């Protein structure tokens, strides 16, 4: 349980305090302080070697920190690992399973290790295999599975015991676009149920679509941790993607670039991405001017998914 003086409480699903990890002389994680409230979906972003997997491995008691503490559900992951991991579903790195077992067997094994009742377990296994679109291969040996199928099975085992906390390291890695979409939908459904999700990913749009907050990590150091909306405001990085009826003429592009609050414009064949400063009012004004003053025929518009990328690149650049 929590020690006296510890700042973590049961309100937070995950807490790290001064978490530091050295691999030999290499500093992988540098004094990471993070608090993730229950029911939040937090994206964990960072380039390769940023320390994302190291953090997740410490949270899952796969490695020990050199300094600092990590708490899951109020329990120190080093001192009371079994209690800390009891309510956690996790995917760490590319999932590898015993090749001689079938999904039914491996999920039965892990479910029983977690103390799930046998009669409920079979039903639940069928349910999670259905969710992960693996029902067809329920009794096929895992040795015959592709990387994507193992990834799906990884998701199935993570949600098997219906955990309130999910720690996911690149859950869509190795999946085709449809698979990525399906995994995103599963995560979204989990978030809707009020569960806590800590999602490490390289895929910015995956985090933007799924998470409400994001923690940005670079070279083991936390660069920013805030809601995506706040980060957009702080970095004034609003972007909209506009679908057009006809391609733009060069003079129209010139006019758009000169509009108030516009920072940058990029065009596609029949599309337009505008980076601008401001909030919703400025966005409404900008769209109105596009139609009235520039004469653009707008088919549709939506916030651009490149916003987070801009924030991310800016922060990583500053951090370096």
């Amino acid at each position: 349980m929590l020690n006296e003086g510890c700042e973590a409480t049961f309100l937070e699903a995950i807490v790290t305090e001064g978490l530091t990890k050295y691999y030999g002389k290499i500093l992988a994680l540098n004094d990471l302080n993070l608090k993730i409230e229950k029911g939040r979906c937090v994206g964990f972003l960072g380039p390769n070697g940023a320390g994302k997997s190291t953090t997740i491995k410490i949270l899952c008691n796969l490695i020990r920190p050199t300094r600092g503490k990590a708490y899951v559900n109020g329990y120190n992951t080093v001192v009371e690992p079994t209690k800390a991991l009891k309510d956690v579903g996790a995917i760490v790195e590319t999932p590898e399973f015993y090749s001689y077992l079938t999904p039914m067997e491996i999920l039965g094994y892990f479910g029983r290790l977690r103390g799930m009742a046998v009669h409920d377990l079979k039903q639940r296994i069928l349910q999670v295999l259905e969710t992960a679109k693996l029902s067809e291969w329920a009794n096929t040996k895992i040795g015959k599975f592709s990387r994507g199928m193992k990834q799906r099975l990884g998701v199935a085992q993570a949600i098997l015991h219906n955990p309130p906390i999910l720690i996911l390291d690149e859950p869509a890695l190795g999946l085709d676009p449809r698979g990525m979409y399906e995994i995103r939908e599963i995560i979204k459904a989990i978030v809707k149920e009020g569960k806590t999700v800590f999602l490490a990913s390289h895929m910015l749009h995956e985090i933007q679509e799924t998470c409400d907050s994001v923690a940005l990590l670079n070279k083991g150091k936390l660069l920013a941790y805030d809601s995506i909306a706040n980060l957009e405001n702080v970095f004034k990085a609003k972007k909209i993607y506009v679908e057009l009826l006809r391609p733009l003429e060069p003079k129209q592009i010139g006019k758009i670039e000169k509009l108030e609050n516009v920072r940058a414009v990029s065009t596609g064949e029949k599309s337009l991405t505008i980076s601008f400063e401001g909030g919703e009012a400025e966005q409404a004004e900008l769209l109105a001017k596009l139609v009235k003053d520039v004469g653009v025929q707008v088919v549709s518009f939506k916030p651009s998914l490149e916003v987070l990328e801009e924030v991310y690149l800016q922060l990583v650049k500053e951090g370096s």
Partner: protein
Amino acid sequence: MDGERFGSFEQIKIIVRYELLRHLRRRRLYAVLFITALIGMLPLIVLKGLNVGFPEVKQWTSTYYGYISLIVIVSGAFFAGDAIASEFEQKTGYMLFPNPVKRTSLVIGKFIAAFLPVLLAVGFYYAIGVISMWATYGTIPTATATSFAYAVLFSCCVLGLTFLFSAVLKGSMGATLLAFFTLFLILPIIGFVLTFTGNEPWYLPTYASGIITYIFDPPAKRVEIIPTDGLKFYVFYPDFLISVIVMAVYFIVTLLLSMLITNRKEMA
């Protein structure tokens, strides 16, 4: 189920069950039983085939059960070499370790699951021996049960050492080969050199395992010195009590060490 009520003992039972399934699926159990049957039957077939007649019962049992060490070492390396190392080497630990299971429970479960097939192989070999002796001599030496008990203790000792190698090394193959060569070559060579120089290697488990066969015809003296031209040859016979203690200590210490190392080992 409530996590507090669902204890380590239940988890160990589940681990044993799935580890046994692993041994069955990978057909190693059948391979070991085949080797055991071959080693058990071959001396009988040779004696019958050559029609030279069976030697005196004590001599035959000592010779026959002398091969049990080979069976124990081969099957121990087979079932325990990759028990821990494979979780790290094949990265299956990334799925297994984030479960709320103590690593100590995992090691104990895996140990029991490795011990059972070794016990089966040893039991199978003794069964072949007992049946053949009954058929040939019409009697079974009373020491057979004690010999079997010593063989089981030696099995635990071999498994403990192999588990230790499996916990220390990163590769399953390395752990399996190291266990095999340590028990089959390195320790016997050290024992031979020590004996040659007049030092009894009582602390070596391979030397201590000699009691498995000496029990059929216990030697009167613990040491014999055979003088030759300017040289003395020593023949040592292991003490029963000391040998039991040595094997038990190896078993307990190596198993505890493998638990400790597995607990500390990082899945980086």
